[in-house]
């Protein structure tokens, strides 16, 4: 056992920390600190800074631009990035479709798509979920019918994050109706500018516009956009969903938010003194910090085991712990952040209209605390709800 980081890893952490401190554009960092959404331009600008450094796709194979870092360094990198805070690379390109393409795609697809993902020339979104298929993803009904050198796709995808910014979508589509549901699914890459693709926003309860419905009506997709083999899409999807879980605990984001909680609590008064000196408040904070510290060590145990076993991208089923506890902590921090601000969390701060000179509602720091609290209810729902995760632990880990 070596329970602390090696000097080389400590030095690596200093290096990435310094890089983030110096290179994250101030306005972008400020946007994240205040709990607002970064714009498309901010995101692209930042990813290109990362890419220039060679750090846009650290976990990819070296020949496609990866860094060769072991899982521990990948984890340190992401944690520091989140904690800065800096915008995390969009998972749809770098963690989802990218690895599917370099693992199952053909040479042309690799050459065509991978460099554009790394430099964010393309913005990818994910076309998996459908209105009728929630956790039971394989019951999807979007159809793709082969017609010469194209597929004709009809159906509807939903919960599609940032589809409004995307120019590409990777979709699971049904190509065979005659076989059990998992066996008739294919993995298609679809240009969002194709005729018949329509994006409609879904406004969430926090007033945010992150997610969308995507309607596909007689969309023609060239067969060269099929990844791997027809009807093998479910295998690629499972591979992809396995990757999705690697950074699910979001330790760095929670660390950042705890910093933010301290910052705001220092400025809020309670019974004549700053909230940050109130022992009851500190107890609530400490209870979260303890869980987070435990989760950080749990995460490091998973990561170092992964590094040893060499089974990159195939986290143990125990990583469901990371999802459950990680989401609980994220929800606890957004909740506490809202409660710090008390009644000041109540006003809805509408986006200022262009050209408006309306004053902010004070304190401005309170603007996003309630929307963030509402928005973060999603983290225990998406990517396999916490109930699904407990099913996984019960069956795969505990043998029940």
């Amino acid at each position, binding site marked *: 056992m070596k329970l602390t980081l090696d000097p080389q890893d400590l030095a690596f952490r200093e290096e990435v920390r310094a890089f983030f401190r110096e290179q994250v554009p101030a306005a972008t960092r400020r946007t994240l600190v205040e709990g607002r959404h970064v714009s498309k331009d901010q995101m692209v600008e930042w990813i290109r800074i990362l890419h220039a450094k060679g750090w846009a796709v650290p976990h990819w194979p070296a020949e496609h631009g990866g860094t060769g870092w072991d899982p521990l360094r990948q984890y340190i990198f992401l944690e520091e990035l989140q904690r800065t805070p800096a915008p995390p690379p969009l998972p749809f390109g770098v963690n989802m479709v990218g690895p599917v393409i370099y693992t199952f795609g053909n040479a042309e697809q690799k050459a065509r798509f991978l460099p554009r993902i790394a430099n964010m020339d393309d913005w990818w979104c994910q076309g998996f*979920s459908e209105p009728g298929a*929630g*956790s*039971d993803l394989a019951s999807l009904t979007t159809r793709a019918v082969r017609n010469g050198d194209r597929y004709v796709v009809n159906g509807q995808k*939903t*919960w599609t994050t940032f589809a409004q910014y995307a120019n590409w979508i990777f979709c699971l589509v049904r190509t065979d109706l005659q076989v059990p549901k998992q066996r008739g699914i294919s993995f298609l890459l679809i240009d969002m500018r194709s005729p018949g693709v329509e994006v409609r926003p*879904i*406004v*969430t*309860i926090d*007033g945010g516009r992150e997610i969308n419905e995507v309607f596909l009506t007689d969309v023609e997709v060239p067969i060269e956009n099929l990844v791997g083999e027809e009807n093998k899409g479910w295998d690629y999807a499972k591979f992809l969903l396995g990757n999705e879980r690697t950074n699910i605990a979001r330790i760095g984001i929670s660390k950042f938010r705890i910093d933010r909680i301290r910052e705001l609590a220092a400025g*809020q*008064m*309670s*019974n*004549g003194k700053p*909230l940050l000196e109130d022992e*009851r408040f500190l107890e*609530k904070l400490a209870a979260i910090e303890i869980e987070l510290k435990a989760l950080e060590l749990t995460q490091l145990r998973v990561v170092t085991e992964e590094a040893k076993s060499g089974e990159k991208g195939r986290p143990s089923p125990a990583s469901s712990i990371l999802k459950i506890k990680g989401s609980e902590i994220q929800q606890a921090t957004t909740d506490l952040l*809202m*409660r710090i601000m*008390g*009644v*000041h*969390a*109540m*006003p*809805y*701060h*509408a986006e200022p209209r262009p050209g408006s000179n309306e*004053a902010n*509602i*004070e*304190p401005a720091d309170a603007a996003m605390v*309630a*929307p963030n*609290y*509402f928005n973060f*209810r*999603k983290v*225990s*729902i*998406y990517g396999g*709800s*916490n*109930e699904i995760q*407990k099913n996984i632990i019960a069956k795969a880990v505990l043998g029940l």
Partner: protein
Amino acid sequence: MDFDLSEEQAILKQSVERMLERHALPRGGRELWRDISDMGLTALPFPENLGGLGGSSVETMIVMEAFGRALVLEPYVPSVILGGACLMHGASLQLRDAFIPGVVDGSLKLALATAEIGSGFSQTAIETRAIESAGGFVVTGRKCVVLGGDEADWVVVSARTGGGAGDETGVTLFIVNAASEGVTRQLYRTQDNQGAAEISFDGVHVTREHIIGAIGGGMSVLSRAVDTGIAALCAEAVGVMSRMHEMTLDYIKQRKQFGAPLGANQALQHRAAEMFIALEQARSMAIYAAIMVAEEDAGNRGRGIHAAKAEIGRAGRLIGEQAVQLHGGIGMTSEYPLGKYYKRMTMIDLTFGDADHHLAELARKGAMVGLL
């Protein structure tokens, strides 16, 4: 002892519910306010000799639960409950005669302005000051998140005329015309779509006749008004929670996944049972609030109200968060009505202090020893 509605109460409940059904979600706007007034609900808590209906805290509870179920956004609590309580329990006869008829017929709207930046959930840690001046006082300060403050014609505002921040004495209540010189309002909607305002008082002149309660003794009126408002919010919260619970049951019975209704999962069944238990416990505490708000002893009344608000906040958070969780993605969308109820519940928790605040206050006051 009898927890069933009397015949009159049952009729009241039915009429309110029927009236509300005629309005679509979100339930707000001029016409709804007219219907609320026409039905006499704005007259409900006032005594008959002042044109009111002489309703007790029980009738308020019945109406507020219906408002909660229907998600009414109109400023009934700010104007009728909070404004009304200030008038009833502290105002001079002249002020009552001047204001109550307008509140009763709905033509006049009041609001209560107490919170400030830096006051936390305290009613006494305020910096707004009123300084004696020829024939009255000059009020200066800034009030935050005045619910109903956007439409209010008159605003009851708390200000220090003596003592220091945090002192129980030295707080005085003034009723101020919102159109007075020196009053400026920044209007907005809250997260749950209520009308509200930040209100600045910049050297606003108020006559002595517009003081509610004793000079420096406003806290006794204010705490009673706030207790009355909290009791009403507790009942409203029960209406909100009961709808969230129903919607969740409907959803998990009907929504299928892996070939079976979601509700076939025992884990979700137990969650729904836990929500039901929380709902029934919250309902009991809304009843308790209606009992305790009528207590004359301010200490006991306050502790009873702390207990009720703490339980309501706790239950509301559990039910709201689990309702969203059990709905999954659809519960996160603004189009589906659940989210509106969830946001309303969250805002009720934050209004006049959240569950943690009231639990801490109750502890500070010795917990519940000796309470009914």
